[in-house]
C-alpha cells in the first residue's frame, strides 16, 4: 500500500464529489435542511391547529335531559360550549363535524342527584378528531366540576371536612437527571439517526465511484495507470466514508439546532417544549460517533463492493436501495421499549450499535458491552473492507458486461 497514492486518489475523488450536484444534494443539502423544515413545519402546523381548535366554541347536543332542567341550564352557561337543539341524527352530525360532541344526560338526573343515586353521564365524540376531543373535554370538565361541587355541598350539609373523601395525596416525583429523561425519550433517536444517515450518505458516492465510473468509461483509464488496485479502492473507500460521516454530522447538527429552536420558540407550552429539550452532552455525541465509526466503515465497504458489481448507475441503485431496509429494521428494533443489550445481541451488527448508543446518550456506560461491540463491529468492518479490496482485483467484476 502506498499512502501517497491513496491520498492522491482521495483528493481527486473529493474534488469530483464536491463538484457533483447530485451527490451534494443527497449528502449535504438534504440532511442539513430536512430537520429544520420538518421541525418548523410540524411545530407551526401543530401550534396553528391546536390554537384554532382550542379557541373554537364547541357545538354540543344534549340527549334526553328534558326532566333535568338544572343540569341543562348549567351546561348552557359553560362559555366554551354552544348547546344545539336535539336531533335524532346526532351520531351522523358528529361524524360529519357539524357538532363536536353529544352528552347523554340520563333520565331523572336532577332528581337522582337530589336523592343521592349515582347515574352515568355518557359523552359521545369522534376519536382522533382533535376538535371533537376538545369539545368532549369541555363537557367532561363541566361534569367533573359539577360533581365536585355536589360532593362539597353534601359534605358541608353533614358538617364533614372535605378531606374525608381524600385522606391522603399521591404525587410522582422524578429523580432521573435531565439527560436520562431526554435519553429515554429522544436520545435513542440519536444513535438511530447516525447509523441510518451514515448509510444513506454513503449510497450515492459509492455508486458514483464504481458503477458510475464504469458507465462513464473512466474505470479503464484509471486501471491503465501504475496505481495499485489496493490504493485505488482505499482512496475511493475513504471518500465514501467521509461522505457518510459528513452526512451524519451535518444531520445531527441540523437536528440539534432544530430541536433547540423548536423548544425555545415559545410557540409551545412549557410541557410540550420540554420534550424537545435535549440534554445530550458533547462527550455523549462524540461517543455515539465513535461507536458508529466501524459501522460506517462497514457500510462504505459493503456499498462499494455491491455497487462495483453493477454495470450501471441504475443497476447499482436497484441493488442498494433495498439495503436501506436491512439497516432500518435492526435500528428501529433497538428503539422498542424493553429491548436491552445482552452478550448475544452485542454481536449483531447495527442492532448492537444502536442499542449501545441509546444507553450512552442516556448516560449509562456498560464498558464490557462497549468494548465487545466496538471489537465485533471492527471485525465486520475489516472483513467488509477486505472483500471490497478483493472485488477490485477481480476482472470478472471490473469488466462485467
Amino acid at each position, binding site marked *: 500500500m502506498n499512502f501517497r*497514492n491513496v491520498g*492522491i*486518489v482521495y483528493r*481527486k475523488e473529493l*474534488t*469530483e464529489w464536491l*463538484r*457533483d450536484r447530485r451527490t451534494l444534494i443527497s449528502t449535504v443539502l438534504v440532511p442539513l435542511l430536512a430537520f429544520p423544515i420538518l421541525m418548523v413545519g410540524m411545530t407551526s402546523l401543530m401550534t396553528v391547529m391546536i390554537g384554532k381548535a382550542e379557541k373554537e366554541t364547541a357545538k354540543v347536543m344534549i340527549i334526553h335531559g328534558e326532566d333535568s332542567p338544572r343540569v341543562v341550564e348549567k351546561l348552557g352557561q359553560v362559555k366554551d360550549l354552544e348547546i344545539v337543539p336535539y336531533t335524532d341524527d346526532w351520531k351522523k352530525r358528529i361524524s360529519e363535524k357539524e357538532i363536536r360532541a353529544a352528552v347523554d344526560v340520563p333520565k331523572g338526573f336532577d332528581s337522582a342527584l337530589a336523592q343521592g343515586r349515582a347515574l352515568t353521564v355518557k359523552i359521545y365524540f369522534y376519536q382522533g378528531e382533535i376538535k371533537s376531543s376538545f369539545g368532549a373535554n369541555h363537557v367532561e370538565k363541566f361534569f367533573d366540576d359539577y360533581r365536585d361541587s355536589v360532593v362539597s355541598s353534601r359534605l358541608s350539609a353533614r358538617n364533614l371536612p372535605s378531606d374525608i373523601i381524600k385522606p391522603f395525596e399521591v404525587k410522582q416525583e422524578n429523580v432521573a437527571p435531565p439527560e436520562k429523561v431526554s435519553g429515554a425519550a429522544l436520545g435513542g433517536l440519536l444513535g438511530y439517526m447516525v447509523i441510518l444517515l451514515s448509510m444513506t450518505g454513503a449510497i450515492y458516492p459509492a455508486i458514483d465511484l464504481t458503477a458510475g465510473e464504469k458507465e*462513464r*468509461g*473512466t474505470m*479503464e*483509464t484509471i*486501471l*491503465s*495507470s*501504475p*496505481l*495499485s488496485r489496493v490504493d485505488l479502492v482505499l482512496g475511493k473507500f475513504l471518500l465514501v466514508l467521509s461522505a457518510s460521516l459528513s452526512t451524519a454530522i451535518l444531520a445531527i447538527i441540523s437536528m440539534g439546532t432544530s430541536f433547540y429552536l423548536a423548544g425555545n420558540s415559545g410557540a409551545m407550552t412549557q410541557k410540550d417544549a420540554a420534550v424537545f429539550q435535549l440534554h445530550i452532552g458533547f462527550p455523549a455525541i462524540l461517543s455515539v460517533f465513535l461507536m458508529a465509526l466501524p459501522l460506517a466503515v462497514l457500510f462504505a465497504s459493503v456499498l462499494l463492493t455491491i455497487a462495483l458489481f453493477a454495470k450501471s448507475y441504475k443497476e447499482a441503485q436497484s441493488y442498494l436501495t433495498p439495503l436501506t431496509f436491512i439497516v432500518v429494521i435492526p435500528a428501529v428494533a433497538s428503539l422498542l421499549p424493553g429491548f436491552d443489550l445482552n452478550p448475544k445481541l452485542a454481536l449483531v451488527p447495527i442492532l448492537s450499535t444502536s442499542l449501545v448508543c441509546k444507553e450512552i446518550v442516556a448516560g449509562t456506560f456498560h464498558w464490557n458491552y462497549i468494548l465487545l461491540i466496538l471489537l465485533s463491529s471492527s471485525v465486520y468492518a475489516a472483513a467488509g473492507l477486505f472483500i471490497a479490496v478483493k472485488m477490485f482485483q477481480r*476482472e*470478472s467484476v471490473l*469488466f462485467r458486461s
Partner: protein
Amino acid sequence: MIEARGLSKRFQDKKRGEIRAVENVSFTCQPGKIYGLLGANGAGKTTTLRLLATILEPTDGTAVVCGHDVVEEPEKVRANVGFLSTATALYPRLTAEELVEYFGRLNGLDEPTLKKRVDDIFNRLDMNGFRDRRCDKLSTGMKQKTSIARTLVHDPPVMIFDEPTTGLDVMTARTIITFISDCRDRGKAIIFSTHIMSEVDRLCDRVGIIHDGTLLADGTVPELRTKYAEHNLEEIIVKVVGPLLKNSEA
C-alpha cells in the same frame, strides 16, 4: 521494447462456456517502431492490448514490457506504458489540467517536474485555450488531445493505442496520427490497433493479423505483400482470414 510470449486469455461465460479471446499470441515491437494489430471486431485485438497494458492478467503465457514481466510486475509495466483506447474516457468533473496532473502524480512525478511537463505538453498540443475547462465541456477533439496529454505526461517509452481514431472527424484523427508518428520519432515502441488501412500503410513498420484470438500473420508490410502476392492490405487480410471463415461457415 515489447515482447509478447505465447499470450493467452480465456474467459468463462455462463451461456457460452469457455471463451478463448486470445490464444498463444507472440510478437515483438522494438523502440522507434510501430506494430499494427489488425483484425475484425471481436478478433482479440483489444484483449491483447489490455493484456500488454496489464489491465487484464493472461491465463497463459506472458509479455515483457521494458524489461518488466506483465504478470510479475504489472505496476512497473504500467509506469512504462501510455494506454489510449476508445474505452479510456476522461473524468467529467475535472478540468483538462487537473486530469493530466492527476495521472502525472499517480506516475510518481514530483510537483516541479509535473508542472514543467504539463506546461510543455499543453504548449505542444496547443491545449492552453481549454486548460481550465471541465472535461465534460470539451469538444471531441479537445477530449482526444487531453487523453493524449494524459498518456504522455510521464513520458513512457511504450505507447499502446486501441483504435484511437474510431468515431473521430478527419481533423482530430489527423492530429492523432501525427501524434503517433511523432512518438515513433521520439524512439517509443508503439502498438496500434485499427480498422483503417490507410493508417496502417502510413504508420506501421510491422503488422500482425489476428483472428479468433490467434495471430495468423506477422511481418513487415512489404514482407506480407510479397508473401500473399497482394499490394492492398485489405486483400491481404481477406487472404489470411478468408479460408478460416469458409471453414467455420462450412
